[in-house]
């Protein structure tokens, strides 16, 4: 289990991370979300021991990390945002080196490397120089290198930057497998759809502050106006035909566009029947109904007034 309590970091006048707290259980993946410069990497760096926090505490399975050589650090694996590989060396030579950092050698190292290459899907390329790998292969090896010493906690700092869809899916599959094995995973990204796919809970940060956290549903519910009902109407009326819908209790907006009527309700389960009943009572025939939930991008937009990707 990873516990982060009131982590704080400032550079001069700039507060990079302000009182960030969260906990991650074994078998759980928590997404640390936010735009570039939000403080995600700084937070991960403090957890990994790369940066000294100005305040707060990090506990790994109940123990604080004390000093650079604290054996507690063995329980963590870091996948840096930048590729942390020697291009000039072969994949195997890279892993031998990284295994040595944790005093793994001999048969244990060979076994760990075999598993790592299996995970990365690079068993047949183990002897090749990393410089000859594609970006996706390097990213997979970057992840595998962090798993050599079998950490219980894995810190992934934007591990899919610049990765092709095939490698991205392979990495996602690896992470889901690791989660199933009971690993504790922290995943930073500014790709909201990645967090929606992978993470059990999310912590959204902006300018060093936590602006929202919880399960995906909990976070989505922070933006109730984004519960949208899309209805295809076979016989829409003339201009202003759905004006009365807007007056209904629980309906925030109702906008027709051709045959499609887009209605925003405060609570999808409670107010959708009222909307459909009104349409039926007024003789409108519905050919298709779909609902749309707020995605994390929408949540971030609603909470900060800015898009994650336009930072």
């Amino acid at each position, binding site marked *: 289990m990873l516990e982060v309590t009131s982590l704080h970091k400032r550079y001069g006048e700039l507060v990079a991370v302000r009182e960030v707290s969260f906990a991650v259980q074994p078998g759980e993946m928590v997404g640390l979300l936010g735009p570039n410069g939000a403080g995600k990497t700084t937070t991960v760096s403090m957890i990994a021991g790369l940066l000294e926090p100005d305040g707060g505490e990090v506990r790994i399975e109940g123990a604080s990390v004390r000093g650079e050589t604290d054996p507690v*650090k063995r329980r963590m694996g870091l996948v840096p945002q930048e590729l942390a590989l020697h291009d*000039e060396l072969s994949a195997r030579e890279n892993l031998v080196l990284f295994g040595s950092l944790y005093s793994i050698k001999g048969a244990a190292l060979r076994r760990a490397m075999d598993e790592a290459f299996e995970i990365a899907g690079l068993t047949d390329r183990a002897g090749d120089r990393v410089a000859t790998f594609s970006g996706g292969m390097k990213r997979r090896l970057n992840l595998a290198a962090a798993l050599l010493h079998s950490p219980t906690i894995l810190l992934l700092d934007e591990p899919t930057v610049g990765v092709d869809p095939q490698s991205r899916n392979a990495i996602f599959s690896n992470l889901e497998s690791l989660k199933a094995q009971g690993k504790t995973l922290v995943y930073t990204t500014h790709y909201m759809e990645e967090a929606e796919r992978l993470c059990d809970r999310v912590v959204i940060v902006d300018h060093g502050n936590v602006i929202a956290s919880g399960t995906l549903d909990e976070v989505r519910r922070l933006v109730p106006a984004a519960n949208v009902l899309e209805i295809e109407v076979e016989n829409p009326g003339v201009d202003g035909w759905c004006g009365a819908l807007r007056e209904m209790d629980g309906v925030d907006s109702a906008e027709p566009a051709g045959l499609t009527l887009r209605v925003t309700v405060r609570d999808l389960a409670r107010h959708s029947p009222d909307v459909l009943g009104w349409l039926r009572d007024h003789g409108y025939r519905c050919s298709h109904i779909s609902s749309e939930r707020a995605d994390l991008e929408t949540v971030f937009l609603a909470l900060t007034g800015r898009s994650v990707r336009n930072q």
Partner: protein
Amino acid sequence: MNFTAFTALIRRDLRLFFMDRRAVTMSFAAPILIASFFGYLFGGVSGNTEASKIKVVIVDEDGGDVSRAVLSALQADQALDVNALALDEARERVRTGKTAVAIVLPKGFAESSARALFRRDQQRPEVPVLFDPSHSAEMQMVRGILTQHVMEAVTSRSMSQASIDDALRDLDGTTGLSAADKTALRNLLTEIGKWNARPQSGTTRSGFQMPYTVREEAVTAHKGTPYNSMAHSFAGMCVQFILFMGIDTGMVMLYQRRSGLWKRLRAAPLSRFVLIGSRAVSSAIIAMIIMLAVFGFARVVFGVRIEGSFAGMVGVCAAFALMTAAFGLLVSVAGKTPEATRGIAILVTLILVMLGGSWVPTFIFPQWLQNVTFAVPTRWAVDGLDAMIWRGSPFSAAVGPIAAMLGFAAAFGAVAVWRFRWEA
């Protein structure tokens, strides 16, 4: 200490260095090539490499036997390449850098110089010497050689019997000399006439000659051991290119920080000593390997021997290797990015190399600058290597350079650790 990680990091550094063709070329081939070139220029293996002759033009406006004798003597001199030209052409050749020095023997030179030899009341002829100001050292050398040959030619002419007879004839009518001086001079000329009239072999000439000959002896490690100028040039170039390797050490650390490798290393349970110490040790090992290879080449190809203490030589090399490693660490804290650091590091290295005497010996520096060079680690390295290789000094002569370089290594290392940006 995690010894497994420590040795693995050293092995990695060595492997990466020897995989880098550019680094290997710069560290091994470049010092060998450049040291061979400079060694050849400064005397070669035996010290007998023929030096290039100084180009000199003689403008003989006198056209007499004395000026012709001077011209012949200068042309016969091994240090000079002499041509006779007209004044305008001589001046043009000096101006365009085709000739270092032009000497004008003016009309009446023989007559006036012969008269002025014994008579201070006589006007001495003026000999214009035109020289290229970028070759002032050669001008001084030519002036010395000219003096020798003119003295021999003029005294030969002045002390011929005909000249003695003329001088004796003119003496009574000469004004400006007291009766006693005239008597003394007459006696002298008469005695020279008797000297000229004595029976003599055909090769004996009248006049003065250089009253000595010179026997040159290069004082090296042992009597009879010729100076091998390759020894100093290899020492100097080795120092220079090993320092360049030290720069690369610092650069690699900066590049690793950028690539994310530094984060992976820092995330592991490793002490700062392991991280920075492994880098220093690998640099020192590379420096030792370079010295072994370069001096090995010098030994096999040019016969450069360690004439002094072998233990002292090993000590000087080891101290310099450690100093280079610390210098590399210092480079890694000099700037935030490799791009910002490389330029300043190269400049500093070139200054260190220049002041250390790798390019030209420090004795040609002004005295104040020579004193300054004792505060430069490369001076101690070059002096230490020179002492152990060709001066044949005992181990005691290596103690000073070793201590100085270890002092610099400690200082550089301390500053590097103090200023090192550990946080990634």
